[in-house]
């Protein structure tokens, strides 16, 4: 019953527990916070280490001696052009405004996902559960497909790429420079406990775009008296200022922090309440209303405020979310930091829904079917599209220039060592 009580496994259990609580990679021989192992906070979460025996080699650092001898920043560009003796990294990346992407977020940012086929008896086979161990060792998150740091091809057929892939396409020197410091249940308050796992050296590394995205856990909880447990605007301001002070102490000059507003989760109930949950599709006997009530009764509802039949509570939750978003917007407009600029964006659910309908879809198809709560892969990638378009339109300097050598890099270095 307690597998970790077996002496031979106790040590590995402790190591896994440490990895989960600190959000640091389980397998990281040189301790540089980057890994060659995919799961357990490895390279599905932050760019793959290209040398796990040297703590001075990791994604996102400024190249050492223009990477003439070795690829010190793991972007796949290294060596010297024999024609003129100039290192390729200098030739292609110098002055290119290379930068990384860091996400401080919650389960939506980490892309929490329970595949519906795990719950639908009619479609089950050995293949259905082949990805279960991977999902379990990633806390049921799939950051490798997320709209923020996702780097693998979409499984949903979504044509929209993640923010990281767009940043990489804009400048191939950014290859592998991503970090997802996201955790299920993260809020403005508990982020302070694990944001130390962020890896950025102010002196040695490239600047970064940090996306702060906590879509709902400041107003979401499983308490019967949900409203009294929500973050207050005053607390929100204090928590965010603490996070920003920390970031300012870590980020290299020229970095940018984009504060994302909270979602208005009323769409969950509005679009799902009378639909059938995957478990109820065979016999038409489990609706999302039943699922929400069941979770509330067990006091494990991830968001009593929005996943509820009580309309007044849903409205109150949205009002508080709006107040907290206003706090973020005010901070972005009024606070100044030496090493980073602050920007604010609303969570674009309305635009996402309209765009999806334009493409022939329906709004409910943007919500994770198994949990009836999280944005699914299509929604995450749509959010990435709107993020990119807005930033490009309002603050193009944040994304850096388009690298004119991208084709040359691709021709010479192919997939740059992959991800």
């Amino acid at each position, binding site marked *: *019953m307690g*597998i970790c009580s077996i002496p031979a496994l106790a040590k590995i259990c402790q190591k896994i527990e440490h990895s989960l609580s600190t959000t640091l990679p389980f397998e990281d021989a040189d301790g540089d916070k980057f890994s060659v192992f995919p799961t357990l906070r490895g390279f599905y979460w932050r760019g793959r280490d290209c040398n796990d025996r040297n703590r001075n080699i990791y994604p996102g650092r400024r190249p050492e001696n223009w990477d003439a001898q070795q690829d010190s920043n793991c972007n796949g560009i290294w060596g010297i052009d024999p024609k003129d003796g100039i290192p390729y990294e200098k030739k292609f990346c110098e002055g290119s405004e290379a930068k990384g992407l860091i996400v401080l977020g919650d389960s939506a940012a980490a892309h929490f996902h329970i595949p519906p086929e795990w*719950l639908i*008896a*009619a479609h*089950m*086979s*050995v293949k*259905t*559960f*082949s990805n*279960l*161990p991977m999902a*379990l*060792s990633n806390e049921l998150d799939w950051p490798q497909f997320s709209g923020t740091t996702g780097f693998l091809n979409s499984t949903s057929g979504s044509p929209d790429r993640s923010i990281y892939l767009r940043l990489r396409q804009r400048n191939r020197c950014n290859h592998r420079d991503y970090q997802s410091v996201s955790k299920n249940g993260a809020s403005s308050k508990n982020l302070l406990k694990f944001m130390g796992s962020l890896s950025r050296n102010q002196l040695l590394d490239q600047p970064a775009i940090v996306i702060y995205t906590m879509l709902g856990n400041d107003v979401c909880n499983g308490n019967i008296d949900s409203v009294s447990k929500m973050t207050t605007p005053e607390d929100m301001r204090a928590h965010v200022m603490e996070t920003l002070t920390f970031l300012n102490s870590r980020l290299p000059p020229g970095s940018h922090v984009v504060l994302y507003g909270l979602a208005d989760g009323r769409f969950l109930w509005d679009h799902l309440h009378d639909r059938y949950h995957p*478990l109820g599709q*065979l*016999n038409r*006997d*489990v609706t999302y209303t*039943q*699922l929400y009530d*069941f*979770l509330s*009764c*067990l*006091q*494990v509802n991830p968001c009593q405020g929005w996943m509820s039949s009580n309309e007044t509570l849903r409205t109150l939750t949205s009002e508080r979310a709006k107040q907290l978003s206003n706090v973020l917007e005010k901070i972005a407009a009024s606070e100044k930091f030496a090493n980073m600029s602050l920007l604010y964006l609303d969570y674009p659910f309305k635009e996402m829904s309209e765009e999806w309908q334009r493409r022939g879809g329906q709004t409910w198809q943007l919500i994770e079917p198994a949990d009836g709560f999280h944005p699914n892969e299509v929604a995450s990638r749509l959010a990435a599209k709107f993020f990119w378009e807005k930033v490009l339109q309002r603050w193009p300097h944040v994304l850096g220039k388009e690298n004119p050598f991208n084709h040359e890099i691709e021709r010479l270095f192919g997939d740059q060592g992959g991800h």
Partner: protein
Amino acid sequence: LSDGHSCIGCVLMVSIVEQLVQVHNSTTQEEMERLCSYLPEKLFLKSICYLTAEMFGPDIIKLLNLKMNADVVCHALQFCKQEAGQPLCHLYNPPQEGLKRALSRARKIIQHSPSLTIPGGL
């Protein structure tokens, strides 16, 4: 994991077994084995599944054969617990005879089951 999560896990598993029986027009025993056979060996998932089926399978078979639903099975097996002063939590619509009566019937059927006396409980 809280008691609530254990309850959800049980209701999910029992529901899936129940639906596999329906889809394959087969027996509960066969479908529990089928479900375990689908799971990968990694992380001991298959072994854990077979062990769980060994421990709770006989009771689940008895109760599902009597057309009891996943809520009733999981309450009877004590994966779902009713907290004092709280309602009896259920995912499915209660059976015609009522949830309490069905549960009391289920408890009687498995009252001497060895799975209810596992050291340390569930």
